[in-house]
């Protein structure tokens, strides 16, 4: 059984076995994800919950595409709480977990694909 925090099955179902495209998709994920986490953190600091909702919504599709199961509920809760503006006190912890897990996943991906 894989001990990894992600799988590429969903992406492969979409694009097939095309290494070049997969490489491009990995680059996009590695480039965009830190920016989206920063935007969520920024929203948290500014109490701009629409911004958090917006970027959580976008990040959700990447999390689903990489099958990052640990974050599947997490990202949905961030999106829901920010959108409905309730249970806001849970957002910092949820965001911290998001950042930590995504950090690990990105490291794993970098190692798996020899990305610096």
């Amino acid at each position: 059984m894989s001990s990894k925090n992600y799988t590429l099955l969903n992406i492969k179902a979409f694009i097939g076995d095309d290494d070049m495209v997969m490489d491009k998709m990995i680059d996009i994920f590695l480039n965009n994800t830190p920016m989206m986490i920063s935007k969520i953190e920024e929203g948290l600091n500014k109490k701009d919950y629409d911004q958090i909702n917006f970027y959580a919504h976008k990040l959700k599709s990447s999390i689903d595409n990489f099958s990052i199961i640990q974050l599947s509920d997490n990202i949905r809760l961030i999106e829901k709480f920010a959108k409905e503006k309730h249970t806001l006190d849970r957002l910092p912890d949820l965001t911290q977990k998001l950042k930590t897990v995504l950090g690990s996943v990105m490291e794993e991906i970098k190692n798996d694909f020899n990305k610096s």
Partner: protein
Amino acid sequence: MSSFKVFIVEDDEFYGEMLKHHLQKNPDYEVELFLNGNDCIKNLHKQPSAISLDYSLPDITGYEVIKKIKGYNPDIPVIIVSGQEDISTAVELIKEGAYDYFVKNTETKDRLWIALTKIRENISLKEEIIELKETIGKQYEFRKAIKGNSQAIKDIFNLIEKATQSNISISITGETGTGKELVARAIHYNSSRAKKPFVAINVSAIPSGLIESELFGYEKGAFTGANSRKIGKFEVANQGTLFLDEISDMDIIMQTKLLRILQEKEYSRVGGNENIKTDVRLIVATNKNLTEEVKKGKIREDLYYRLLGLPIELPPLRHRGDDIIILAKHFLIEYAKENKTKVASLSESAIEKLKKYPYPGNIRELKAIIELASVLSNDDVIDESNINFNSAHGTSDFLIEEDTLQGYIRKIIKYYLQKHNDNVLLVAKKLDIGKSTIYRMIKNKEI
């Protein structure tokens, strides 16, 4: 088919790239990804064939993007791809002109693929229809479609030209076989309505009880046997041209209904309450004299003035001089094309014979004569003997060629003798001449 350009508007670059890659599996698709709404709008001049639009964008809302796309070109199909299922938004966007609304899930790529395939098929069909219409239009380019060089036909060309430049009703009169429907089609396909339907209906061919439902359609249950709604000819011809041939055969009650439509520009289907607006150009035709028909009470006077519009009276073929030979040669070419044979020519004597005949059946009759001559001729030249006149209008051959009075008398007597098995006594009685006159002519080999 022209190239199929797909715009993907998706701020999630990852997802957008995946969609792009997926759609590019079809080598005919030219796919472009935009990460925000404004970039898509700035690139609409590239004429995308379809747009996949993420509803949630960073710069402007999907709602605003679709409004701008539809403002630029309402025919561009826009498929909304949204991260959330929101029925009220979906309904609003469909109202705004969205082609479809998908929620992002594992099936999105396949649904998008199917939707684009359907859009492409529709575009292909539309292009085919436009191409066909252009081909038909060219066929009916009237100076080519209507053959002839006589002054009579040149006058008709001038009238057709005027008819194509306005929306006025047209009434075409002329003997049977003079080409009334051809002229009506030529007017339609050379007018601003050319890309819309031309619908022809022969009033005399439809029983009077059925003409109303034929013209206006009917609703389900309007009468026994009306199992589903039927669209009438007025609805089919909307924005195009409706050609009513043999208009003088329309019964008087139906004329009243037609008059009301022409005045109010709306009607209801039989058995229906809904008022349907109509924008139809009417061309009517008859081989009868419309004024006479009004006098006889067969056409309502008020309808007559409505229908008269621009009157075009087609000349009989016998008044068109050398057009007879131009048309005969045209029919020879058509015959050769249809039968994959060499185009035959006409001998001098055949030309002379054709020119002298009065053609009571006009161009239709000439065509039949030429087709028969083409069948009868043994080589590539059609001569006098191949030209046979079998008019249903009772004109006998002896009237065709100019002759002296004595010449005509001989021909008449010969004709009667043939008809009555050389019974001289009977012929003398029928023609009220002496039997000795006939015997003398036989003896002198005059007949």
